[in-house]
């Protein structure tokens, strides 16, 4: 099992979530976070924004579904401009459903 952490634009949140749901991944966790990237924020004229609002989506999926989830997220959140976000994948050793106590 893998955990997919996707940092995406807040305005693309609905697109991505509905697309993931349509692809069969309805379960996820969402957090509103602030972050910055390689460009150290955003400068508009004299005003510098150091931290920009983003949405962090956490999904736990099977190993063979990771590529599909990644392609769904990129297809729906891509604008081609700086600030589209990142996707990180890491391992999950074990997972449990609290209601039943069973592993997933």
């Amino acid at each position: 099992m893998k955990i997919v952490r996707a940092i995406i634009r807040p305005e693309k949140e609905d697109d991505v979530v509905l697309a993931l749901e349509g692809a069969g991944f309805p379960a996820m966790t969402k957090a509103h976070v602030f972050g910055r990237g390689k460009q150290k924020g955003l400068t508009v004229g004299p005003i510098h924004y150091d931290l920009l609002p983003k949405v962090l989506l956490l999904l736990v999926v099977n190993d063979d579904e990771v590529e599909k989830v990644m392609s769904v997220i990129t297809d729906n959140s891509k604008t081609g401009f700086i600030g589209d976000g990142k996707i990180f994948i890491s391992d999950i050793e074990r997972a449990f459903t609290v209601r039943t106590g069973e592993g997933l």
Partner: protein
Amino acid sequence: MKEIMAVIRQSKVKQTMEALADIGVTSVTIHNLNGRGKQGGNIMECVDPLMSTDVECVSKIYKFPTPSSMAVYSKLTKPVFWVPKSLLDIVISEVPEDLVVEAIMKVNRTGNKGDGKVFVMPIADALRIRTGERGDAAIV
């Protein structure tokens, strides 16, 4: 070293913290965030009493029913896409992971949907900023 991520009900955070303290886990990071599970959120019975809240029963009729797909067909239903949840982040080295997982599950199990999930994942390294200790010593 293991990281345990538990997505639980917000109302159970205090009880869970007490149960964790009993087994010697006192360092916990709590995030308040929104989540949704296999059902894709909640349908509030009080808003639409005719809509069945048992999604398993509805899924026999529709192909892939979730609150958002139901919202397309039914103007009455007010689905809740995102349910407020708490994410507990625990990094352990000495306490056995089974003990922590059992403690979390015991407190949070109500038998209803939305009890949450517990994930166990490996941690590559840890560093205590105050002293510069690395590895297990940073967590104990």
